[in-house]
């Protein structure tokens, strides 16, 4: 309860700061909307030329990647900006300040920002998600709803864990922005691989997406199972919550290990 109250205070302060330049804020929101809109436009252009990919129809692909985008947008809402700024915070020494706060630095960083720039992405994802769902005939019985919700939550956890993981690397190399963007950037990063069925990639890349950076579990496996697709290992469709748990624990431990390393190095 206390945290929510604190978050509210932080958001109000953060937005007051941003509203000082309201022209830039409005422009930023419009720019974001168009940026995401263009991605969907490009998707439409591709499927204007082609009917399907790897046995998935246009709407099935759309449903899969908006599912994963929804989880991604929520995750980025909290974790993307702090982790992207980690490198800069450590370079400039500002991170030391965070260590003196009465709450944990990660908590402080997450609470003290409000990434309204992800709102357009969230809204557009929801629109296209609803649109694609409308075109598909998925049987929304209680079992499927429960399955889908649990997997959505797992996807949120997996995305957040990967983001925290990449941010934590900053404790060792001060210029980590590129590493963060290599894995999580949605224009040219590895995250982009989740937009299409992973069977289009070679076996080696599929292995990376399953076992090393488990993006395959944020959209592909759960949705494939929901749509009744043929999977090489049907059991994978039910692994997302377990993977999410492992990723979360891993990210937590890694973050604390990094934090200790930073403390001992001094600066």
């Amino acid at each position, binding site marked *: 309860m206390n945290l929510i109250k604190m978050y509210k205070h932080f958001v109000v302060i953060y937005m007051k700061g941003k509203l000082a330049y309201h022209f830039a804020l409005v*422009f*930023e929101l419009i720019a974001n909307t168009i*940026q995401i809109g263009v*991605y969907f436009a*490009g998707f439409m252009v591709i499927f204007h*030329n082609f009917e399907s990919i*790897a046995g998935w129809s246009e709407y099935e692909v759309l449903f899969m990647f908006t599912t994963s985008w929804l989880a991604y947008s929520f995750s980025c809402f909290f974790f993307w900006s702090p982790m992207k700024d980690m490198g800069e915070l450590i370079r400039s020494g500002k991170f030391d300040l965070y260590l003196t706060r009465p709450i944990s630095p990660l908590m402080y960083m997450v609470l003290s920002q409000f990434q309204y720039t992800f709102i357009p992405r969230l809204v557009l994802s929801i629109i296209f998600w609803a649109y694609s769902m409308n075109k598909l005939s998925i049987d929304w019985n209680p079992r499927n709803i429960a399955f889908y919700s649990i997997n959505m939550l797992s996807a949120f956890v997996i995305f957040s864990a990967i983001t925290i993981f990449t941010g934590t690397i900053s404790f060792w190399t001060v210029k980590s922005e590129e590493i963060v963007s*290599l894995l999580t950037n949605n224009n040219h*990063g590895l995250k982009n691989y989740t937009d299409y069925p992973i069977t289009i990639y070679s076996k080696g890349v599929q292995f990376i997406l399953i076992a090393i950076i488990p993006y395959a579990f944020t959209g592909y496996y759960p949705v494939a199972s929901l749509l009744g697709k043929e999977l090489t290992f049907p059991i994978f469709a039910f692994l997302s919550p377990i993977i999410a748990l492992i990723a979360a624990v891993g990210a937590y431990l890694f973050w604390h290990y990094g934090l200790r390393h930073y403390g001992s190095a001094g600066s």
Partner: protein
Amino acid sequence: MRKYIDYMKIGIKEHMVYSSSIWATFLSKIVYLYMQFALWNALFASNAEKNLALNHEETIRYIIVATVLSTIMECNVIGWINSEIQTGNIANQLIRPMDFRTMIFSKHFGTTLIKTVLYCIPLCVVTGVAFHKPIVCDGQLGFGFVSIILAFIIQFLYSLIIGLMAFWLIVTWPLNMLLAAIYKLLSGSWIPVAMFPDLLGKINAFLPFRAIYSIPVTIITTPMSQENILRNLIVQIVWIVILYIVMTVTWRIGKKKLIVQGG
């Protein structure tokens, strides 16, 4: 001349500071290239009987060359000018005994040179080794290089115009972000322009974006008549003239309206 060469060197050095970021940038290009390659391959494999503007091989060649080209076409000019204005440094830059625009160009040119060495050539080698079939049309490669140089100039003029608008708008990066999205789609760096639906293709014919990627990449990868190549090169030259005029006007207005803050 010496001073501009020094600025070129600054551009090179600034890019070389962090070796880990060079590696990450290079890797992200490979990640992106492979994704494009897998995506278009799968699309053609699933729709074998479809008759499209470009065939399977042409498309693959197109997206490979477009991605390689993107390593040198990306441009930081807008960001540089924005930060000079936000920090108030711009006042110091303008009283120097040299032309601000030439200075920015020298720095950009230096950055592009180092990018060619660090990313473009290695990526050419990687794709050459990984992709066994011929990628470029040998006979048109000369025209291709000319076209790339013209595209480089168009890209610079375009970025300079947006950057200079910060002289009175103070921040133009949101504007840049907006244009970058449109640019990504319309330039053809992502989806070949030939595959656009009619209406979009027609609108795009009147915009400069396709002159940056689509024209040079098509000249390099698709066999075409000499006449056609020349027509494309003329389109690029016309855009250079138009953008140069717009840039000069923006510069004149900008100098009058410049708001120096901070400092």
